[in-house]
């Protein structure tokens, strides 16, 4: 573009085919600082652009002046008050009327047929290439009285076209395309316009000034307002940082720089940052690459980007040299694969700058969104919302975090959003770079959700962001504490490192990395503050660590022998004890051979209820922990109800959550056979089993799953789920207790409650239990029945004794019935 009035942010405005162009955005009313450092409004700027594009007749129209041309006087009254058109015997003199004219009322303006008639004529006549610019489109469309005529005219333009090359430009002040569409829809009278606006390229967003223009604004302030520049070498970086600030118009920069000049403050990046006028990450004069180097743990990312950079440079050079025949350029779109908090957003910003420096993007700003920003709760609205977001990111980077959320449960609307995204990536390929980010595993689901995605995001453009290592995490944590102004004791530092290591080792794919560390720092600060009560010189100590983290502290694990003794002390269960001991021995043996470390095994506990399965499961957790197979060794007990949901699509997440909760410990599924008790395809238990299967594979070594239930039902369960069968070893049989064992349990439980069992009571209890066992058969509750008996005996004793009589169960305390 040759004109001095041309500004970069309108470079993309091309008149090509469509008879109408819509301009909108916050910056429509901005000033545009041209290459001559002159301020121009949108009208003058547009005039220059249209003139450059070959329009010889450029007519403007506003509410008050239906038709005027720039340069010519606005066609109302002439300076000096004389007549314009005619001469009478007294020349151009206007005789003044006697009464004072009424104060001016808004003119009738475009309120009738004729302005439309005129525009229609201008648009349809051949000859001089004509542009009609409606400078106040909202007002003009809203207050037009003859909407029918306008609607008809517009429909004709759009259907049959205008004279070739003619165009009608409408200037709106709506900030987003969505608002613009809403506005037009709200007029209820221009259906064709609505349809036209639904298209992708119908509207052009007037954006904030880019770095060239902000550079000119600085020069303008320097030359006209006496602004001094404190840091000449840093000036381009400052201009870049200014251009990256969303929502700050040229007009605003002029005002701000005027403030600096008036206050005799020299312009530096630091000063702009101090006033919070710019985001300081980009204004320190260092290149994107230098800042990338300083980021923790991103060497691999840097290497990857370096490769991409040289690929683009080479491609540009080849094209410039005319030696490249490739039509498909290197894809600029990237996938950031990694857990949260690993610097993906920061790197996305650097990518924006890098692309800008390479000339791929004009502004290089980053618009960060998540799935919810693209998906609308209203039917049919998602493409519009997505369009708006994309438009705001034009000339920069659209960074979609957790992109996988666009698939899965949001499948349909997510699909609409992805469809729009693909269309715009194609249509605006010179103005848009998309970076999608997500967890490993999930991001692949996203890429697989539409065949168009892998083409836009080729495998070579997938960049992995590994989790931060414990030392890196600790560095982030301590830096955060330092930022809070806190100090800490050496003991606290040691313990915090243990906690960080623990968090790292027990992490799952949602682990927040740096974000998690900042959260921890926040929690520490809060409990520290409560403790020191204003004595801020107190350092952070170990006691400030919230209780939830205690599990990560290295504690003295009881020796395996003690745990095994504990097992041995259990009543009965001889076969169980044997199986567990064998397992322990085998694992020890494998450990000694130095072969691949043994993963914590999954176990099947089969046996009737009340036979100590849960107790043993807890003990197994501790034993595996002591053996180093599980980091924590805790037990999460679940039943079918905890895993299977009533609605479709909910079961998987529910099961996954249970698995997450049990990571580094034991997931104990009682009555596991109930998961698949039905053959109905509507039973979501199947889904639970499948999910479980997958999760067990995924978290191998991080989890022990113990499935428990009646022997025959469990046998059937395992038989019907061959995938599971292979994961569990031999079942551990839990047999019904015999009466002496039951009595022993009763004795121990009584003792635990502080009671003594008399011999007579023991005898009667033995009879009672024997009868119950016989009567209930396989449903006999074993330990549970003992517990029940104890409770009834307790109640009878309570009714019997008074004062401080000894708490001894008598025979009479044992009930006679079995109800």
């Amino acid at each position, binding site marked *: 573009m040759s004109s001095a009035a041309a500004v970069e942010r309108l470079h993309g405005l091309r008149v090509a085919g469509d008879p109408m162009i819509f301009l909108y955005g916050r910056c429509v009313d901005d000033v545009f600082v041209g290459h001559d450092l002159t301020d121009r409004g949108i009208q003058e700027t547009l005039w220059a652009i249209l003139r450059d594009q070959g329009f010889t007749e450029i007519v403007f129209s506003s509410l008050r002046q239906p038709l005027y041309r720039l340069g010519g006087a606005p066609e109302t009254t002439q300076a000096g008050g004389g007549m314009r058109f005619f001469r009478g*015997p007294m020349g151009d003199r206007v005789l003044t009327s006697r009464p004072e004219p009424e104060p*001016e009322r808004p003119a009738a303006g475009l309120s009738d047929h004729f302005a439309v008639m005129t525009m229609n004529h201008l648009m349809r006549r051949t000859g001089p290439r004509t542009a009609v610019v409606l400078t106040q489109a909202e007002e003009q469309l809203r207050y037009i009285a003859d909407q029918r005529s306008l609607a008809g005219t517009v429909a004709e333009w759009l259907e049959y076209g205008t004279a070739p090359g003619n165009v009608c430009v409408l200037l709106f002040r709506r900030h987003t395309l969505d608002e613009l569409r809403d506005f037009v829809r709200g007029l209820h009278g221009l259906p064709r316009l609505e349809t036209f606006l639904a298209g992708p390229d119908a509207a052009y967003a007037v954006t904030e000034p880019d770095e060239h223009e902000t550079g000119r604004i600085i020069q303008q302030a320097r030359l006209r307002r006496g602004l001094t520049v404190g840091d000449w070498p840093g000036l381009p970086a400052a201009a870049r940082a200014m251009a990256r600030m969303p929502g700050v118009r040229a007009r605003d920069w002029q005002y701000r720089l005027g403030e600096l000049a008036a206050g005799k403050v020299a312009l530096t990046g630091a000063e702009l940052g101090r006033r919070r006028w710019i985001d300081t990450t980009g204004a320190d004069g260092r290149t994107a690459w230098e800042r990338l180097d300083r980021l923790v743990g991103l060497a691999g990312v840097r290497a990857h980007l370096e490769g991409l950079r040289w690929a683009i440079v080479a491609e540009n050079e080849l094209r410039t040299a005319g030696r490249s025949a490739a039509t498909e350029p290197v894809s600029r779109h990237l996938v950031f694969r990694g857990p949260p908090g690993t610097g993906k957003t920061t790197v996305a910003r650097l990518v924006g700058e890098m692309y800008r420096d390479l000339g791929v993007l004009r502004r290089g700003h980053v618009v960060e969104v998540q799935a919810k920003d693209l998906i609308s709760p209203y039917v049919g609205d998602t493409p519009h919302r997505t369009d708006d977001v994309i438009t705001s990111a034009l000339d920069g980077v659209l960074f979609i975090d957790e992109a996988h959320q666009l698939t899965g449960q949001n499948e349909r609307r997510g699909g609409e959003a992805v469809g729009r995204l693909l269309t715009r990536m194609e249509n605006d390929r010179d103005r848009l770079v998309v970076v999608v980010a997500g967890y490993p595993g999930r991001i692949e689901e996203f890429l697989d959700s539409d065949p168009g995605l892998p083409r836009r995001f080729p495998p070579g453009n997938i960049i992995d962001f590994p989790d931060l290592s414990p030392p890196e995490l600790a560095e982030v944590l301590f830096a955060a504490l330092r930022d809070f102004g806190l100090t800490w004791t050496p003991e606290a530092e040691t313990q915090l490192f243990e906690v960080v290591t623990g968090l790292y080792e027990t992490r799952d794919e949602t682990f927040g990395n740096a974000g998690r560390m900042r959260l921890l720092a926040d929690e520490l600060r809060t409990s520290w503050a409560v403790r020191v009560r204003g004595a801020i010189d107190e350092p952070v100590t170990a006691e400030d660590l919230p209780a939830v983290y205690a599990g990560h502290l290295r504690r003295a694990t009881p020796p395996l022998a003690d745990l095994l003794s504990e097992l041995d002390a259990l009543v009965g269960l001889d076969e169980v004890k044997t199986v567990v001991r064998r397992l322990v021995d085998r694992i020890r043996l494998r450990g000694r051979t130095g072969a691949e470390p043994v993963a914590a095994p999954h176990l099947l506990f089969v046996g009737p209820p009340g036979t100590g399965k849960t107790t043993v499961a807890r003990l197994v957790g501790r034993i595996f922990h002591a053996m180093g197979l599980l980091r924590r060794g805790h037990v999460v007990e679940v039943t079918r109800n905890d895993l299977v949901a009533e609605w479709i699509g909910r079961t998987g997440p529910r099961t996954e959550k249970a698995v997450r909760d049990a990571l580094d410990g034991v997931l104990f599924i009682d009555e596991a056979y109930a998961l698949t008790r039905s053959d109905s395809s509507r039973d979501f238990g199947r889904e639970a089993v499948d999910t479980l299967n997958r999760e067990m594979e995924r978290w191998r070594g991080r989890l022990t799953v113990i499935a428990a239930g009646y022997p025959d039902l469990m046998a059937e369960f395992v038989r019907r789920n061959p995938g599971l069968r292979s994961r569990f070893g031999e079942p551990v049989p839990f047999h019904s207790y015999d009466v002496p064992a039951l009595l022993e349990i009763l004795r121990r439980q009584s003792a635990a409650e502080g009671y003594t069992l008399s011999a007579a009571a023991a005898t009667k209890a033995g009879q009672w239990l024997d009868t119950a066992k016989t009567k209930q058969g396989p449903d006999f509750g074993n330990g549970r029945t003992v517990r029940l008996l104890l409770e009834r005996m307790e109640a009878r004793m309570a009714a019997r004794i008074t004062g401080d009589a000894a708490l001894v169960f008598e025979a009479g305390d044992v009930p006679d019935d079995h109800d």
Partner: protein
Amino acid sequence: MSGRKRILVDEAEYFGLEQKAKQLGGLQRAVPVLINQLRQQVNNDLVRVSEALETRQAAVEAQVGTLHEQARNLEARTEQKLREHTRRAAAALEQLGTDVRRDTEARLVAQQAAWRAEIDESRRQARREIQDVADRVGDLETTAAQTTRAATDWLADARTMVSLIEDLPHERHAPGELARITPRLDTAATDLAQGHAASALGLAQATYHDLSDLRLTVELAERENLLARTAATGALAYLTALIGQNEIAPVEDENGVPIHGVTLHVDHWSRGELTRLRDEVAARSREVADRVLSTADLRAVTATEVPGHEQRLGEIVERARLRQLRSQLRVNLAETVAGVLGDSTGYQVIDGTYVGADERERFLAKMQHLNGNELVVEVATPSEDSSAMVVSVHSYDDDTTARHDRDTRAQAIVEGLRQHGLASGGAQEAGDADPQWRDLEAVRKREITRE
């Protein structure tokens, strides 16, 4: 088909042009110029009148010298008074040139009456002396021959007087008077011839006095006539000059500052009223010069006719000024309407003219839309001096035929006029567009015929 909308604007209500025209000045009076004009005219006339009087007086005095002593005495005294009279009258007329007040004529008339009384008194005195002589003659021993001789003298003097009267326009000032008196001279001559000398003497003497009085009366009347004519000539000359000065008047703005390059051609705007006035004045001037008017008529010219014409001149100028203002207002209104139409409908002005290119006629503005539609804005005054203005919009649209569209457009005009402070009463449907106004070139070349 096309349509026509009419919008009424009462100029008097909004502009008060009538008052404005009055404020903007009555007649142009370049006073020193007028006085010079008047004085020169009067002086010229006076010189002529004086010369004539002088000539006649010399002739009269020559005759008087032939009279016998007593008559000579009487006439000489009268002549002396007349000379004095001539001198005073000239002075009074000269005064007229420097003092153009309306009562000049009346004062002149009063003066003349006073002089006449003076002369009469002088003559009564002379007659009394003659009577004394006669009485003394009666006392003396007068002979018949002396009586005859005296009778003969008086008779001869009486005939001299007759011839002096006959030189004057006595029939105009004292018609039949001389013919009534003259027979008595024949009677006296007969008496004398028959020897009745005393009777003849008495009759001759009395007749002489009557003739002498008649001559004085005629002489004075003639003099009054001459003076009245001079005054009338002066007044008419003044009026003519005033008319001349107001043929083209400067035009001033509201603040009385002359508008450069703009003048008011009174005769043009009054459609010839000024010429008619000038012609009337010229005709009167000729009559005055031709001495056909009576003294009373001449005095009326000066006393009422000229002031009346002066007032009429003022009215003509004022009317012309008002018409010029209204003409300007017609264009102003057309301009306003064109502006409103241009701003609100996109019509552009392509031409504008008065009918026949005559600023006194209605004004027509032609506007064209880019799509070829045309309309003509007509601004007319129902009669030349009416304060009502009628704005008509004639639509010659090719495609805007819906009544609604024209209503909308007319409403826009009314609204626009209101914004200019012209709260007009709204637009009325006025039938079809007048086809005669469509071709403005033809309108411009049109011959204006007026009854």
